[in-house]
Structure formats: C-alpha cells, structure tokens
C-alpha cells in the first residue's frame, strides 16, 4: 500500500475519541476498512479531508488534549509535496486558521493551505458554487486568482470524478470512466468493479454487492469474536406466564412495555449479582464493571447495530421502555453517534419477533456474554404435580467467553434469571 483515500471521518475536530473506537474509514487498493483509534483524547486537527488521497506515513490527524498548542506539528503543506517559493502568509496555528477566514459578507477562505486567494477569486467561487479548498488541493501556484477559479470550473465540468484507486483500476482494465454509472459523488473502486461485471455478465448470474463499512465491521468483529475467545453457550427454557401477566396488567394501566424491556430490567439486575458475566476482557485482566450498559441488538436492512442503554441497572421499567425505545428508533433512523455504541457491558439479542424459537448469538467483544432471546411458544409442559399444562415458554441462550465465565457461573446466572422471570416482583 502506497496511499489511501479517506472515505469518512467518524469523529469531528474538537470531539473526544477513545482508543478502540472507529476513527475513520479508508480505501486502499486492496480493501476498504474502518480504522479504530489507537488513542484516547481530543481530536485536535484532521489533516486530511474526505476524498483526499494520502501517501502512507503521512500524518492525517492530531489527537491530544483540548487546547494544546500543535502549531509545531502542523506540516507546511500536508497533502501536496510542492514547496511554496513566494513569501505568502501561511496559516500558523490551528486556532488562527479556523478563526481568520471568516469575514462579514465573505464566505470564502482568504488563505488556504498557504495559498493566497484574491478577492475576485473568492467572489467568483462563491457565485459558481466552487469550493476554494477543492482548487487549493491540486493548485501548484501560490496565489489563486479568478482565472484559476474559472479554469477549475471548466475542468470540473468536464472531468469525471473518480478516486485514485478507481482511476487506476479503470486504466488497467481499459474502462472509460465516463461509462461508469454513478449517481452523484465520485466513482469508487466498487463502481468500477460493478461496471466490469456488468460488462461480462449475460444477464442472469451473479450480483456483486460491494462491502459497505457496516458490513465490513460486522464481518470483522464476528470473526474476531469467534476466533479470539473460548466461546460456548448454555440454554434454558422458562415459563414466562408471569411476564405475560405483568405486561398485560401494565397495559391495562396505560403503560406500554415490551418483553425486551422487562428482560432488560431483569437481566440488568441479575448481572449486578454476577459481575463476571458483566465483565470485559482486557490485556491487563478481566475488567469488572460496576454498572450495566445494556447493548440492545437492532437489525437494520444494512446490518446489525447494537446501541447501548447506559446504566440500565439504575433505570426503572418505564425509563427502560422510554430510553430503550428511543435508542432503537434512532438506530433505525441512523441518527446514532459513535458514543451510542460504546462502552456496552452486556448485549441482549431478541429474535422472538421473527418466530425463532432459539438461537446462539455471538458474543460482542470485549464483552463477556450475550443473551439470545427466542419467541414465546405455548407448549405443553409438566407442572409440579405432574399434569400436562400448556404454558407460554421462552428459550434463553447465553453465549459466553469461557475465559471469563465458567459453565457453572453461566448456569447459575440463567437459573437466577429464570427465578426472576417466574417471579418478577423479586427484582425489588
């Protein structure tokens, strides 16, 4: 790999990031991947923009403490290798650059990447909706004038926009970029690949779905989970008549809760009693959390996301219903932020609404366990007297990392959960 193209920043300048959180997505000639942050801190500066092709070993972001002076770290010309020969004023510090370019009535940059922008250039750029930043990226002179803006507009109009990787691929395979279909945005490698395939297929055959960021994340994390842990599972079947009754009673009183909400309440309680089931694996040791951040698995069309309901063990059932509902809604709308996915200590996954009776979920690393909830089936069971009765039964499967949680612990956890399910009032 000699260079990568930044596709997306997950964290904005000025925001906090934690080690291990997704930081940016980058496309290389081999693949597209999400890169997690290796550090915890404040993102002080993003040195590359979306769409920028950065040579390897080039700094692309600065993480530090808020307010730190990083002027010494800022490269003269972070992306482009040219030197500035004329003495033009150069951006000296982060705060200066973000402050000085705004001017009443002026919507353009005055000095950008060390290049001076003339008033006329800014005016024309504003009128033709061109970003001076775009011009500055590939501009080799030291002063951008109106002429340069007009020339840029002209070439932009005619140019087919493609990422460097896509461009290279198209060149290699002899594809005319103009023929590659793309609704808005730049042509990426995936588009070229698709075009290639479209060209060779007879109509019925394969459809190649390019990897999205989410799919990639899911794929890598699932694989990681199964390959890095000693993962196994325990199963238990529970009579949920009391949950049904509780839910109905609350509904009569105008309080709507789901079985999942009730389970979150009960599971959170049990987790406080079984700290190792609520733990995280770290290189230094097993981290026992004194709080329960309940991950709630939500299936979207694009894939699986697990928003986290923080401090679920301190919330009332009503609060769980409300906040949990909001989280799920937001997940469906795609309006969650990276914070909403972070710091989960346990995950609850429910496929009951799809009639799945039981399933084995994959643990969400670095968590210790995940509870898979199946559908409620009215089944004939033998009661204590030995008679056959029909009861609403639910199968719960706990998958767990046997490095942290032993089989007996898992069993006892489920047993305790079953106890609470059969008598929810015990939770108080």
């Amino acid at each position, binding site marked *: 790999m000699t260079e990568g193209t930044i596709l997306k920043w997950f964290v904005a300048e000025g925001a906090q990031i934690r080690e291990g959180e997704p930081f940016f997505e980058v496309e290389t000639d081999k693949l597209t991947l999400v890169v997690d942050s290796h550090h915890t801190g404040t993102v002080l500066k993003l040195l590359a923009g979306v769409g920028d092709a950065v040579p390897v070993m080039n700094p692309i972001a600065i993480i530090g403490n808020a307010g730190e002076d990083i002027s010494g770290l800022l490269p003269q010309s972070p992306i482009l290798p040219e030197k500035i020969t004329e003495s033009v004023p150069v951006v000296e510090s982060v705060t200066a650059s973000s402050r000085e370019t705004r001017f009443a009535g002026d919507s353009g940059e005055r000095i950008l990447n060390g290049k001076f922008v*003339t*008033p*006329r*250039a800014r*005016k024309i750029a504003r009128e033709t909706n061109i970003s001076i930043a775009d011009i500055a990226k590939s501009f080799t002179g030291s002063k951008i004038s*109106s*002429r340069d803006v007009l020339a840029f507009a002209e070439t932009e109009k005619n140019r087919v926009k493609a990422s460097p990787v896509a461009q290279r691929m198209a060149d290699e395979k002899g594809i005319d970029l103009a023929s590659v279909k793309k609704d808005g945005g730049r042509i990426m490698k995936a588009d070229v690949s698709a075009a290639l395939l479209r060209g060779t297929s007879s109509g019925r055959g394969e459809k190649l779905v390019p990897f999205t960021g989410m799919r990639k994340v899911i794929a890598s994390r699932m694989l990681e989970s199964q390959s890095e842990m000693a993962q196994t599972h325990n199963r238990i079947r529970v009579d949920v008549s009391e949950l049904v009754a509780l839910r109905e009673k609350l509904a009569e009183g105008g309080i709507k809760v789901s079985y999942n909400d009730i389970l979150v309440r009960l599971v959170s309680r049990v987790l406080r009693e079984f700290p190792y089931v609520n733990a995280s694996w770290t290189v230094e040791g097993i981290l026992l959390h004194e709080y329960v951040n309940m991950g709630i698995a939500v299936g979207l069309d694009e894939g699986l996301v697990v928003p986290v309901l923080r401090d679920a063990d301190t919330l009332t059932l009503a609060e769980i219903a409300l906040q949990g509902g909001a989280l799920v809604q937001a997940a469906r709308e795609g309006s969650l932020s990276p914070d909403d996915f972070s710091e989960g200590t346990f995950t609850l996954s429910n496929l009951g609404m799809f009639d799945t009776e039981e399933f084995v979920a994959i643990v969400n690393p670095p968590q210790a366990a995940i509870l898979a909830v199946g559908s409620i089936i009215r089944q004939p069971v033998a009661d204590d007297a030995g008679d056959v009765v029909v009861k609403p039964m639910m199968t719960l499967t706990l998958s767990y990392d046997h490095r942290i949680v032993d089989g007996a612990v898992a069993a006892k956890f489920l047993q305790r959960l079953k106890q609470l399910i059969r008598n929810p009032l015990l939770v108080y």
Partner: protein
Amino acid sequence: MTVKTYYNAIATVLAEEMRRDPAVFVMGEDIAEGGGTFSCTKGLLEEFGRNRVRNTPISECGFVGMSLGAAICGLRPVVELMFLDFACNAMDQIINQISKARYMSGGTVKVPLVLRGPQGGWRGKAAQHSQSLETLYMHVPGLKVVCPSSPYNVAGLLRASIRSDDPVIFCEHKNLIPVKGEVPDDPEFLIPLGKADVVRQGKDVTVIASLMCVHFALEVAEKMAKEGISVEVIDVRTLVPLDKATVLESVRKTGRAVVAHEAVKFCGWGSEISSIIMEEAFEYLDAPVARVGAKYCPIPYAKELEDEALPSVADIEQAIRRVLS
C-alpha cells in the same frame, strides 16, 4: 477633420470661441505679437485687437487675480500661464480666491475662467519648468482639472472648459505641443468635462492614464498584445470631475488595474484612483492596484536623470506584469 498640431488646435478653438462669444478674452505673457511662447494664441491679436488680447507684465498673481474679478463681472477670461508651474506665483488667487468665490458667496457668483498652460517634462527644462502639479489643484474643492492628451482632446476639452461656468485648470503638456492629430472642423465640437475615454479595449488589465502616459500605455499594450495579453487603456481626460464609473466598470471587467501619471507617485492622484478602486471594487480585484509616477525628486536637468525621474514605457510595462503575476 483636419490634421493639426496640438498648439494649433488650441489656437483655433480660442479664435472660434472668441468669435462666438464677445465675453471671451485672453490674457497672459507674450500672447499678443508673440502669439504665445508655444504659439497657442497665434493670430488672436490680429483678429481681436488688444482689448481682448491682453499681453500682461510678468505678474501672475496679479493677472490671475484680475481674471477672477473679470469672470465674476461676466467675462470669460482664458488666462495663459507660460509654464503651468508659474501658477505657483498665483497660488493665493487660485486656492484662496478663485476656488472659493462661488462657495463663499453662497452660490450667487460664478467664475467662468480657464487657466491654461503647459506642464510636464522630457524637454530638459529642469525642476521649475517641468512639474506636473495637477494633484494640488484636484485637492482644493472648487477647481475643475482637465488634461488633454491629443490635438483631438485638447480641442474638444478646451471648448468645454471655456464654456463651463466653473474655473478650470487646463493642464496641457509641452511634449505634446508639436504632436499632430486629427481634429474635427466643427466649431461646436466639444468633449464634455468628466468623461474618460477608453482608448483601447482589453480584458486582462486596465491602465488608467493621462497625458504622456496614455501614449506610453498604448505602446505597451501594443507590445503585450503579441504575447496574448489584452490591455485596456483609459485616458481620464478630466481629473475633476473624475469619471469614476468608466474606471470602475473597466476594473470590474479585468480585475487588475494600473494607474500611470507623470505626477510624483507619492501622493499623486494615482493614490486617489487606487483608493477608489479599493473601496468600490475590492471584490473584483485579482491583484492590488499598481501606480506608476515620477520619482520623489525635483525634475533634473541631465537627460539620463530626467528620463529616470519621469515614468517610462518600461515602468508601465513592469507595473502591468506585476499585477498580472
């Protein structure tokens, strides 16, 4: 149209205006039998007699002051200053009296006089006879200032100045005196004061110039056209009132401007034009306005020194290239 010299154009207009309006009379040194040091009043004595062709003693302050009185009383004096530098002898009359008479009277009197004379260098006349002081007169409210760059312009502008009811400082150029050019024969041919002339159209840079610098600018424009650079040249023609609109329209089109004049660059009127452009067309600029003017020194006698002190074709070209870079 007739081809005339600059001085002949002046003499013709003076005669035509004196014929047309008995209130017009001329006053100055050696203008009678001498016909004027630069032959600008040739033939007037013979046609109009001593009453209206007043050959004066060497008393600029006196006769310039008298022209004010005559103008207030309804005549239209055209006063020749042998060299416009000599107006300095009459500074009190020009600055304290002529420019202010109308205003101080509350607008009741008018002062329809013309003070005309040659200014400028390149003739080896040295410091006291080669100045370009039009900026001084521009700065005093109440004086119109005109600078004709060709026989065509001098004819049209002199007529307009004589017919104007306001005092006009008419800045001719001694180097243009023998220059020939086409002049309309129409005795009513008049160029209104306050109208600049786009003498050459262009789209890459605007040069705003007067008198000799107009000709220099045209020479540079012709040369640079071969390089594919299109220079627009504007001859201001009148400095007060200034044709701001033409200048700004041109700069908005080209985005780059150079002002070229023979006045000393420091505090020369190029500064005013530059400021106007900056204030009213800043957004349209691709480069700061460049000014070309004489160096900060009295005009020297030796040719090499005089040429160095005064603005040249090369100076204008350099300025144009600078704003284009």
